[in-house]
């Protein structure tokens, strides 16, 4: 997940000035590729316009919306009441809850994720590869499906309480997932793989001689870990924590499924509630959305500053073999902990969903259950669901391609050509990074109520939302690769007679292919499970799989929701395997 760290600046040479000296035709130039300064300039204008449109329209619409006293598209008055209402006790309460939930989830996820990374990469833990694989799988486990599974397990009528009452006869103790702690618990489960994946790179890339120096200076393994390894990872840990905080602040699926029944509201869910349930207050939702976006943007700016510092400190990139720290008596506690994590974050939720999808009426006791395939048969026969599946594949497959191409174009201008205004382009590309999905969705809702573009109710709007949301990731992945590739590789092509476009096509693209593939993979998977940006803008004909699962669960149809989740995960694993087989470059992490 190194893509999340800031894209560095390339060398600052202006090998390229847009619109500067005119290109002149030479008598013998006819057989050569057409000089393409004009093409590149034209493309720059287009890319700039598209990115500005994608990034600014939703935000501008939110600003307008926050100053209106009605719903999008209706006649109304200008007002400041929405901003004044931000300081009402209700909103302040929600803000505090949001900060507490996100803060605690981040702290726990950081501790567990870092511990797992150290166990896997620094000790003689027996199954490092299996554990990494499990964590990668659970990284792709959609948050709202995880929340659903844990509701089935931990709600008042769920598995745990059933077991406590029916099998053990205990009435005095009961578990309620519909609580602040329930939200935090599931969020931690969901964020741990993210922390692990961001910390893993710095740990593996650390020059072993630092640790060896500590050992030869007389430090015991644990002392070395405490006094050398962790301090050297400080930047990476802080930067991972900030990103984790951003993700938990904007997390939507978990708090909406668990928090709404439990009356625990965070900013992201409050936006949803204000738009979905009467009396609606779209204007207040817009003001809250902008506030949330400001908070996450500040965290991201801090993170980018840290990421810049990080590069100057730790790693050399040459990973070495380090003598693993023996776990000794800790071996079994550590093994149990790893097994427990995999069980509660991956295996148990998966099995529960499978079980729930196959029974007629919910009961925790499989011997009482009436098994049935009716949920799967329903999916098989439901045109609506099939359309959702097809929509999902179109949006993920095609949308990810659009996203990668736009990301490549942006980073080529920002990192390589650096024409007038490239800094602004870079800022625009990164802007959506700080905009939570639900806020982006709300922005688009406001925007397309006024813009004379026939996009509302089309799949294009969904693709637009996803591409906007994940453009920073796409641009950073390709940008990071372009920075690595020496400029002279392209210059050599030009001096050998290749035009700029030919240089890009024949040299830069082939050399960046693995990065582009992994960027496509990342976007595909993200689009496949995205729900927060969709939930406010989908219509019956543009529903996607994640929304179908959601609606089934909202209608208390656990069986159908579980069956759809199982289907979604089977599809995801199938797609994952297909993509990894077709694009070996995506495997590289």
């Amino acid at each position, binding site marked *: 997940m190194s893509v999340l760290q800031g894209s560095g600046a390339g060398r600052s*040479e*202006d*090998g390229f*000035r847009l619109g*500067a*000296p*005119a*290109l*002149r035709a*030479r008598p013998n*130039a006819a*057989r*050569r*590729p057409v*000089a393409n*300064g004009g093409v590149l300039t034209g493309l720059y204008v287009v890319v700039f316009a598209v990115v500005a449109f994608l990034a600014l329209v939703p935000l501008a619409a939110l600003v307008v919306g926050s100053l209106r006293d009605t719903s999008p598209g209706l006649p109304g008055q200008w007002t400041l009441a929405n901003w004044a209402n931000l300081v009402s006790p209700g909103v302040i309460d929600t803000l505090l809850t949001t900060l507490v939930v996100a803060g605690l989830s981040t702290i726990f996820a950081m501790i567990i994720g870092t511990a797992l990374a150290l166990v896997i990469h620094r000790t003689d833990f027996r199954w490092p590869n299996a554990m990494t694989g499990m964590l990668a799988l659970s990284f792709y486990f959609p948050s709202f499906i995880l929340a659903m599974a844990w509701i089935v397990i931990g709600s008042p009528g769920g598995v745990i309480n059933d077991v406590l009452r029916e099998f053990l006869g205990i009435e005095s103790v009961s578990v309620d997932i519909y609580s602040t702690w329930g939200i935090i618990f599931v969020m931690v489960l969901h964020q741990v793989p993210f922390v692990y994946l961001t910390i893993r790179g710095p740990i593996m890339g650390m020059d072993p001689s630092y640790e060896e120096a500590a050992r030869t200076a007389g430090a015991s393994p644990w002392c070395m870990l405490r006094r050398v390894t962790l301090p050297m990872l400080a930047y990476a840990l802080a930067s991972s924590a900030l990103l984790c905080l951003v993700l938990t602040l904007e997390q939507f699926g978990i708090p909406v499924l668990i928090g709404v029944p439990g009356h625990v509201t965070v900013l992201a869910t409050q936006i949803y509630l204000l738009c979905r349930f009467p009396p609606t207050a779209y204007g207040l939702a817009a003001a809250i959305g902008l506030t949330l976006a400001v908070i996450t943007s500040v965290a991201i700016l801090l993170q980018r500053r840290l990421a810049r510092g990080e590069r100057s400190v730790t790693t050399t990139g040459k990973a070495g073999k380090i003598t693993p720290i023996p776990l000794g008596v800790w071996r079994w506690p550590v093994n149990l902990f790893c097994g427990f994590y995999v069980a509660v974050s991956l295996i148990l939720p998966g099995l529960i969903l499978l079980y729930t999808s196959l029974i007629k009426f919910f009961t925790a006791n499989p011997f009482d259950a009436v098994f049935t395939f009716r949920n799967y048969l329903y999916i098989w026969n439901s045109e609506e669901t099939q359309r959702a599946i097809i929509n999902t594949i179109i949006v993920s497959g095609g949308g990810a391609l659009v996203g990668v191409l736009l990301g490549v174009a942006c980073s080529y201008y920002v990192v390589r050509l650096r024409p007038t205004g490239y800094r602004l382009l870079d800022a625009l590309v990164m802007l959506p990074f700080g905009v939570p999905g639900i806020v982006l969705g709300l922005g688009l809702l406001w925007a397309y109520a006024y813009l004379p573009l026939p996009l509302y109710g089309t799949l294009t709007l969904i693709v637009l939302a996803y591409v906007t949301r994940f453009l920073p990731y796409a641009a950073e992945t390709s940008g990071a690769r372009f920075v690595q590739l*020496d400029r*002279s*590789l392209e*210059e*050599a*092509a*030009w*001096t*050998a*007679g*290749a*035009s*700029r476009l*030919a240089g890009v096509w*024949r*040299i830069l693209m*082939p*050399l960046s292919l693995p990065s582009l593939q992994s960027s496509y993979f990342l976007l595909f998977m993200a689009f496949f499970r995205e729900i927060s940006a969709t939930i406010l803008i989908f219509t019956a004909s543009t529903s996607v799989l994640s929304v179908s699962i959601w609606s089934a669960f909202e209608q208390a149809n656990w069986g159908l929701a579980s069956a759809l989740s199982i289907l979604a995960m089977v599809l995801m694993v199938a797609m994952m395997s297909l993509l990894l087989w077709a694009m070996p470059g995506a495997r590289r992490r």
Partner: protein
Amino acid sequence: MGISVKNLVKSFGSLTVIHSISFDVADGEFVTLLGPSGCGKTTTLRCIAGLDTPSSGTIAINGEMVSDPANDLFVPPHERDLGMVFQSYAVWPHLTVEENVAFPLTIKGERDVAAGVAWALDIVGMGKLAKRRPSELSGGQQQRVALARAIAARPQLLLFDEPLSNLDARLRDRTRLEISRIQRELKVPALYVTHDQTEALSMSDRIIVMEAGRIVQEGDPRALYQQPVNRFVADFIGGANFLHVQRVGQKWQLENGLPLEVDPATDRDDGRSKIALLRPEAIRLDATSASEAAGQNRLTGRVVGGMYLGPHVEYIVEVGADRLRAYSRTALAPGSPAVLTFDARDCRLVDDTPQTEARSLHA
């Protein structure tokens, strides 16, 4: 024909790195731009290649104008018909040796690509490794591939950007000879950028010394070594000792008042501040005084230290306030007195320029 650069200026924003320089490279001539890092030599080369856009001035290649900002004229690099070897080699890692060399041929639509590749690889002696990937090659071999690629399409101009700086010393010597040979065989003008005086002296027909974006002196290697115009050039090319001198009447003397005979050809009173240049190999260093001949200088000093180098010992000798380097085969203990003898003709007056980073770089 060849290259013609007139009043070339290059600025990056408010920072001007090339201050209106002009020079020519004749057809078939091998010219080197020599100077310390940051002197503008690479930027000059990149302007000629079309990789950087000049701020003003003109560049013509074989009589054809390729850059003239005043008239909005800029021919992009791919239409300049040149071959360039980069400091980093820039051999494309995703292509084989053969495919790397074939690139300029296919892109220019040559008919017999295979023959062109074979010819180029043969010249650099890499024919046997044609199917290899760059990652399977040593630095020297990658360098040869870069060279083969640069010449494959028989360009009308060869450009070299410090091509040897990443090679080890022995390989550098061999490749130097090879580049010279290939350039003479192809009979195309070549412009070579380096900060290494040995490369410049051994390969070039002509050397252009640059400092801080300006040309300081140009000439053939011998002239530059023997008749440097100022302290910077003298110091940058070859080992150099400098004696602080002052004019007293018609004579020159050292700071401690001792008289010094200098090369009369350089004894011009042009009002500029002068310093005496004395190459270490021109000094005879003895423990005791030998007989003095006419036109010879004799100075006494004190040995500060010595380094045994094999053929001779390099001594540092203190003469007045100056420290000189001199060679001798006699053993001299540190602290012992020494006598330095040298011809007046070997003691040249040069303009005393402010010291730049060149000195530390060169030392």
